[in-house]
């Protein structure tokens, strides 16, 4: 009997549970099978057509899909007007950076470019046997519909997905696969289909992140992205604060810089798309979504929101406490009201709705998690206060009751889920970086499994939203930059959570199933009794390069768990910040490494107590004899790195030479103290703080 704390994210794609993957010992779908189903098998294999291929979306997706489909022999037919600007060729430099020139050239050589007049398809296209059309033509319904008719007439069996950001599938007559900016690297697609199709599962299998959303006007991403833009425009209209400064305050409050984002995407197109989404939403839901005059003006003029260089701003704007409160109301009020609509209409699973904001709209914390921090009562008060400022919005849909469900598992486990079969549990992360939300949810997941009597657990990413584990979310360090005690407390708390994986389960297995596991997440998984990693995974402790001092016991736990012969490697990992391949970390970071399927099976057999793998014990005593000056470590460059190395060495020395019971506090002190140092405040964390949290 399988149980889950909340519905597994993977299940929404028709791919079962994460627990199911371990139980079956195989992934729920094979890429080659899905390629056959979508494009035809063997000699009958057809091609992928991307129309509007020279546009921002079309060009990005052409490169992203071409690079992934090339091993399967799928040709990409890139279709556009003869006069379209050469968007595809601009992609080559990025492709070369990622894959090297040779492979990039190979990928490009598999893209066949066609031009057409918009109403007649090129005759040569038929020879490539188009099977799947990803349409990225202008956001005008009639143009899109006639485009589909043209393809259906020529290729009756073709599957079509639109990249539209606003039109429901029912209006288009085809499914939707709405991608997110920046299109060449963002993996998320919002998918509208009656049920997950082989195309959607293929996207997943190719390492992309399809997310099922409901068939409504504008999807989750655009309600949030356009919503925060509209809120910012309204604030501008009410207060005159210029776009560049609103961006700073919005960035500080929630994460995105909406005006800069529009300019960066390309003001002409982005302003039109935002206006288009909002206009359709306003027609259905009323004033809450009505575009402001400034947005209409910018849609028409295509002008940037930021002033040109020669008119760089001269007068600063600052808000006092009362003005800040009003600002929060102007921004969060409509966002929460719009979120209530998304929730009421069940636009997506909560965890996915939340993730879309973080992965596609630059929210530091997804809007669901943000609402959760505020609490139901404060959310309601914020929206009501917004209605005082903008009374017309009160006539639009507003469902405060949606926020009264915050105690449910769907609300409480946005980032961390747990499943079990009565014997073995699986804890999964749906977020690639560790933050205080993840920490709280991880504790709740452990509590739930313990409550269910589960003593054996596998800890891993969710095979869907998190394709890698990149370490701590450094924005959680911002308060510690100015208050050492906050840094110490953060380190202590997260370390205590990590220790639960070691102390409270009979067997725990940390499994790196994605392409990398770094920093805080590596420290966390090291607390598991066993660590399994796919052979291609990179493992590393890049803290020294930021610089910060590892604060989840990285400075002593790995030494305690490895033999003295391995200590130089651990030292190198910590002091140089370079990653190592999982296969080279066997015996000191990793207990097993191999192909994905083998790893899945190994995890399961360890968790069930059926593996012969020896558990590496954690030495709880004082460690001695290793911590002289490190040898063979690459020389340092820059004062920040020098200071970080010294601080990390100090932390290693002091936490290793203490017994395990005391080391947790000692290393937390070192980590917290360094966060308030000049080296940290002038390093990457400090710069990020200055950019995002200091207006």
């Amino acid at each position: 009997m399988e149980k889950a704390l909340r519905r597994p994210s993977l299940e929404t794609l028709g791919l079962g549970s994460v627990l199911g993957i371990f139980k079956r010992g195989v992934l729920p779908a094979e890429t080659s099978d899905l390629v056959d189903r979508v494009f035809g098998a063997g000699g009958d294999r057809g091609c992928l057509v991307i129309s509007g291929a020279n546009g921002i979306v079309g060009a990005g997706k052409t490169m992203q899909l071409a690079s992934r489909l090339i091993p399967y022999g799928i040709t990409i037919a890139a279709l556009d007007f003869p006069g379209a600007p050469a968007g595809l060729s601009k992609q080559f430099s990025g492709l070369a950076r990622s894959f090297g020139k040779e492979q990039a050239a190979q990928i490009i050589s598999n893209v066949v470019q066609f031009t057409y007049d918009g109403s007649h398809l090129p005759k040569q296209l038929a020879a490539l046997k188009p099977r799947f059309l990803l349409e990225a033509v202008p956001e005008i319904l009639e143009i899109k519909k006639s485009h589909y008719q043209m393809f259906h007439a020529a290729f009756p069996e073709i599957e079509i997905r639109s990249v539209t950001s606003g039109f429901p599938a029912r209006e288009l007559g085809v499914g939707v696969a709405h991608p997110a900016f920046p299109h060449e690297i963002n993996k998320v697609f919002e998918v509208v289909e009656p049920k997950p199709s082989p195309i959607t599962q293929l996207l997943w299998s190719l390492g992309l992140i399809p997310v099922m959303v409901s068939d409504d006007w504008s999807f989750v991403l655009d309600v949030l992205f356009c919503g925060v833009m509209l809120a910012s425009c309204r604030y501008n209209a009410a207060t005159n604060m210029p776009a560049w400064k609103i961006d700073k305050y919005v960035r500080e409050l929630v994460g995105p810089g909406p005006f800069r984002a529009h300019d960066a995407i390309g003001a002409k197109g982005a302003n039109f798309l935002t206006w288009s989404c909002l206009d359709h939403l306003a027609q259905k839901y009323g004033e809450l979504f009505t575009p402001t005059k400034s947005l209409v003006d910018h849609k028409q003029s295509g002008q940037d929101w930021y002033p040109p260089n020669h008119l760089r701003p001269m007068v600063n704007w600052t808000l006092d406490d009362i003005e800040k409160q009003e600002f929060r109301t102007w921004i969060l009020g409509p966002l929460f009201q719009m979120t209530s609509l998304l929730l009421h209409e069940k636009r997506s699973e909560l965890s996915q709705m939340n993730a879309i904001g973080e992965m596609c709209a630059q929210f530091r914390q997804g809007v669901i998690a943000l609402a959760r921090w505020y609490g139901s009562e404060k959310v309601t008060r914020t929206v009501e206060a917004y209605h005082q400022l903008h009374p017309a919005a009160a006539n639009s849909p507003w469902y405060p009751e949606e926020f009264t469900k915050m105690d449910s598992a769907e609300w409480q486990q946005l980032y961390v889920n747990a499943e079990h079969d009565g014997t073995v549990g699986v804890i999964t992360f749906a977020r690639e970086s560790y933050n205080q939300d993840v920490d709280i949810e991880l504790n709740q997941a452990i509590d739930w499994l313990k409550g269910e009597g589960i003593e054996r657990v596998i800890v891993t990413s969710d095979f869907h939203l998190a394709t890698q584990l990149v370490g701590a979310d450094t924005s959680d360090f911002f308060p510690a930059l100015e208050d050492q005690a906050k840094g110490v407390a953060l380190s202590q708390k997260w370390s205590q959570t990590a220790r639960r994986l070691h102390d409270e389960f009979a067997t725990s297995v940390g499994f790196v199933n994605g392409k990398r596991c770094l920093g805080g997440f590596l420290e966390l998984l090291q607390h598991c009794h066993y660590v399994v990693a796919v052979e291609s995974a990179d493992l590393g402790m890049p803290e020294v390069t930021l610089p910060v001092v590892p604060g989840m016991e990285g400075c002593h736990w790995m030494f305690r768990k490895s033999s003295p012969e391995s200590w130089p490697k651990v030292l190198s990992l910590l002091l140089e910040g370079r990653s190592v391949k999982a296969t080279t970390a066997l015996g000191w970071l990793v207990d097993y490494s191999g192909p994905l399927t083998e790893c899945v099976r190994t995890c399961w057999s360890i968790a069930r107590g059926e593996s012969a793998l020896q558990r590496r014990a954690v030495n709880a005593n004082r460690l001695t004899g290793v911590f002289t000056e490190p040898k063979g470590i690459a020389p340092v460059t820059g004062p920040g790195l020098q200071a970080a190395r010294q601080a990390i060495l100090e932390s290693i020395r002091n936490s290793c030479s203490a017994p395990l019971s005391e080391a947790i506090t000692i290393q937390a002190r070192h980590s917290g103290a360094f966060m308030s140092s000049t080296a940290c405040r002038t390093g990457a964390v400090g710069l990020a703080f200055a950019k995002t949290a200091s207006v």
Partner: protein
Amino acid sequence: MIKNDSALSRVRIPYGAWGSSYFPAWQASPLAEVNIGQFAAEAMARILGKRKVPTSNLDYLVSGSTIPWHWKFWNSPLLSTCLGERTPGYHVEQACATGLQAIAVAASEVQCSCYDAVGVLTFDRTSDSSVGVFPERRTNQRTAVISDVWDNFGFDPATAGSMLVTAGLAARKYKLDRKEIDEITYCRYQQYFAAKDAGFLKRFIVPLEVLNAQGKVVGCLDSDAGVRQVTLESLRSMNEMDTCVTSGAQTHPSDGMATLLVTSVDKAAELSSKPEIEIRLMAKVDVRTSPGLMPEAPTMAVQKLLSQAGLTLNDIAVVKSHNPFSVNDAVFSKIMDYDWIKMNRTGCSLVWGHPQGPTLTRIVIEALEEAVELGGGYVVVMGCAAGDVGIAALFEVA
């Protein structure tokens, strides 16, 4: 006689929808290094934002300045862009009368029913003033070069005299007493600092942080920098540059901006922070006096204004002058038989400096604030301008 129901009947000035920067003395603040037009427009948006007046209310923008600034050719439309809107408008310029002339022009735009809300934005930067090169081949020099602020202070082409000389001439004509001049000057400083200490300036002046090209704050305009307390002794000890003209008894160049709105009746009610206060511009007059007697011109303008309005100074609640020289106030007092202590009770340009374009706009704002504090009444604002011109306007605060 001006009748309340006929003169500029459609025009109101919404209370509170106004403000100015401080006026730092020339070279004493980051304003010495900025494009003052762009700065003023951004500051206007900031000030109106503080007053909860969205700039989208503006139908039109009347700008005013006297010293060339970069991109001046584009004048009001560019300034409108810098404050975040795309309203039409144009630029007015009449030396030191600009700040009041711009208000009058805005009023006429509203009165002829063209617009409901006209922004008035005046500004100038005397620091590092621009230098003009004029190819004039018929002159002896063939090419004339003029430093826009200082050369104009020093030379009136119509009379070949300087501004300073006009003050000396007026002092001699009216047989002014140096002792009284020093007392007026001292009184004006006392009045300014008393008003400042009482928080009067904070009602309408918004401190403004100035950014450099990298977006870093390079300074904050949070005082009329350069204005210091004076003593009667120090004023008395100063050398005369001309009759009754010392460095203490004349104003100093400064930089700054000021803004207010001129609107229709309904719009004023909508935009005013205190709609119950009604402010009307009743009339404005200009006069031109004899060559070289500029300081007497404002008095003549007031005489003409009161005569047309059918009022006397006894009917006026607030009298405020742009007084680049203490001589101006002494002449006014002597001709009008008016106690100079009753004038300029909350400060004046003699003390806080003279950036030219915005000077009279700030004076109008100060005068209207003072009238509101007094519970209303008539307000007379006057000033002199290059070319021996005097300007005066009558407002009613109800």
